[in-house]
């Protein structure tokens, strides 16, 4: 069933086959004022570096997660991956094909069939005027996978049942479903073209926790059954802990730490990762005397020089303010921090963190 392309499979440093490889992936948005006010009022061009050079290997059949605060560029990475945005620079290799610079619709078609996206807002991700059956059949028709109406309807029914809905739901309109059911519909549509790769951008952020658990379990079951590869984007660390095998932490358009999930939670190294893990309130181990972390996220229009995190980092030194730390790989993972490189990182002693 798998079509691995003709090129020899890419392997990551651990020797696992790589489905998607990002190298120096960059997306800049031109948010300059209109030409007229630039000329008349002497305003300058402004470039927003939403994603600024990301290296990442997404191993096949596993879940990679990106976390970070609002505006750090998570969704922009996701949208470049699914060819909604064209990268400004860098390479984006999917199953052996460079797709970042590929713009021809016909050349992209076979790639697009093998990747799909699940969105955050279950109310905006389904066309309100289409019946469910037509919505779910859309990828099948778009990619010309089947042309016999009866076969398409059978496939739709099968997909609906696969995500825990009923075959008869094909006749209903999206507004007749609850948020969680709509997210199931989104998943059914995403599965319709039998993709290898699913990009999930905040798949449960708009859902209630009891429904979130259902969706997360469903995504996990589907991965086991179909051997899917996921890129999950979220700001919820507890969700990441549950779904991810590998976690990338982003800050202002860059990756600051990339590590296996267990290692990251057992011993986070980047000071920003530590801050995140420390500030997330946890139901099981509440810290009722939590002291808020000082500082705010800087504007991505004017990121601080050197290490972008130095304005909030308790370990910042002169060097951090001028020199951008490189990603350094060792046995525990990859991290971009001068303190780690210089060996002056304090041990991880999570305050109040005594497991129940």
């Amino acid at each position, binding site marked *: 069933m798998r079509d691995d392309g003709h090129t020899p499979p890419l392997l990551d440093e651990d020797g696992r086959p790589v489905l998607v490889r990002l190298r120096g992936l960059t997306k800049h948005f031109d948010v300059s004022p209109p030409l007229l006010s630039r000329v008349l009022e002497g305003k300058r061009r402004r470039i927003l570096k939403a994603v600024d050079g990301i290296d990442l290997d997404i191993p096949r059949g596993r879940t990679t997660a990106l976390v970070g605060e609002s505006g750090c560029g998570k969704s922009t990475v996701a949208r470049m991956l699914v060819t909604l945005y064209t990268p400004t620079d860098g390479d984006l290799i999917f199953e052996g094909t460079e797709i970042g610079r590929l713009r021809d619709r016909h050349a992209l078609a076979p790639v697009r069939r093998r990747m799909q996206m699940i969105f955050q807002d279950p109310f905006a991700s389904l066309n309100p005027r289409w019946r469910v059956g037509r919505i779910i059949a859309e990828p099948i028709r778009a990619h010309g996978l089947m042309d016999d109406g009866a076969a398409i309807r059978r496939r739709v029914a099968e997909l609906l049942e696969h995500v825990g809905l009923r075959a008869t739901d094909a006749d209903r309109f999206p507004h007749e479903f609850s948020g969680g059911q709509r997210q199931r519909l989104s998943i059914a549509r995403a599965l319709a073209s039998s993709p290898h790769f699913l990009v999930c951008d905040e798949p449960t952020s708009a859902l209630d926790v*009891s*429904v979130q*658990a259902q969706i997360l379990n469903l995504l996990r079951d589907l991965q086991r059954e179909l051997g899917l590869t996921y890129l999950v984007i979220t700001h919820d660390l507890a969700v990441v802990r*549950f779904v991810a095998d590998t976690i990338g932490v982003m800050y202002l358009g860059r990756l600051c730490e990339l590590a296996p999930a267990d290692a990251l939670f057992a011993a986070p190294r980047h000071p920003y990762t530590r801050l*995140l893990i420390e500030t997330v*309130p*946890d139901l*099981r181990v509440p810290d009722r005397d939590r002291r*808020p972390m000082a500082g705010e996220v800087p504007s991505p229009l004017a990121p601080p020089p050197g290490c972008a995190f130095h304005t909030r980092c308790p370990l910042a030194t002169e060097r951090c303010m001028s020199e951008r730390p490189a990603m350094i790989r060792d046995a525990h993972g990859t991290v971009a921090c001068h303190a780690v490189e210089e060996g002056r990182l304090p041990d991880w002693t999570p305050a109040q963190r005594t*497991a129940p």
Partner: protein
Amino acid sequence: MTEPLLSVRDLRVQFPTRRGVLTAVDGVSFDIHPGEILGVVGESGAGKSQTGAAIIGLLEPPGRIAGGRIILEGQRIDGLTQEQLRKVRGRKIGAVFQDPLTSLNPLYTVGRQLTETIRTHLDMSERAARARALELLQEVGIPGAADRLDAYPHQFSGGMRQRVVIALALCANPRLIIADEPTTALDVSIQAQITSLLKRLCREHDTAVMLITHDMGVIAETADRVAVLYGGRLAEVGPVDDVVNRPLHPYTEGLMACIPTTHDRPPRLAQIEGSMPSLTAMPDGCAFHPRCPHAHDRCVAERPPLFDHAPSSAACWLWSSEGTRTLERTRA
């Protein structure tokens, strides 16, 4: 035990619609004591915001209070006229909503909005009001407050805006603050700034807070007691530690079990099957019975009242005087 600051008894909020009358809040009762933070949790549509809106008198028409009593400092405040309510709203109850931008006027400086609000509630000169505005900004922890007084809302970051909204709510030293999802629109690293500010207000000024949120982590770290709503009804209310770790109601049990944590990675999350019924299709009896693993005949036929099992109370037949859980507990 001190007198409660706020007592809500059997509150019902209804919306007349073309498909009949919708009961968005159905017989909810709870107390809030001075200096206490009551967390209100529940799924989307459970009636959290409508409960809050009924207390502040900000129900959107055609919504109306159809029954019950709301007593603030011994005085009934349901059924007050709009004029009387406005006074109560500013002086005794402050409100903080999810999106700080909707509470702030983008055209006026923060200082002007604060002084105007102060002067509508308190008899103060322009000067004194401005001094108080500065004090309030310092109180909510805006760095360099003196220079920030003449800034516009858009010059503040999200977390700072929310702190300005809290400062606005504090203008007349209210006894109670109703905060509806005050941290939902904010980043995790900013969230703690707001919750610790609310906690400090309670500690230092004996202000009571009704904290509405669906984030159980925030509740666990911030609230003293929690009320769990389901389908417009109160499922359980009690001290936060008991509700989280020793829940009485099967819904609360399911809810706590399905929340993922950063501490371990189970192969699967526990899940409650199905979803909360819509208000137009409320089942008879216990609202939770279609999803409840312990549902029995009585649950289908009869709606359970709130049973008291100190320190918590739950609306579930398992906890009636002859309910199985009550018997287990007395035996143990």
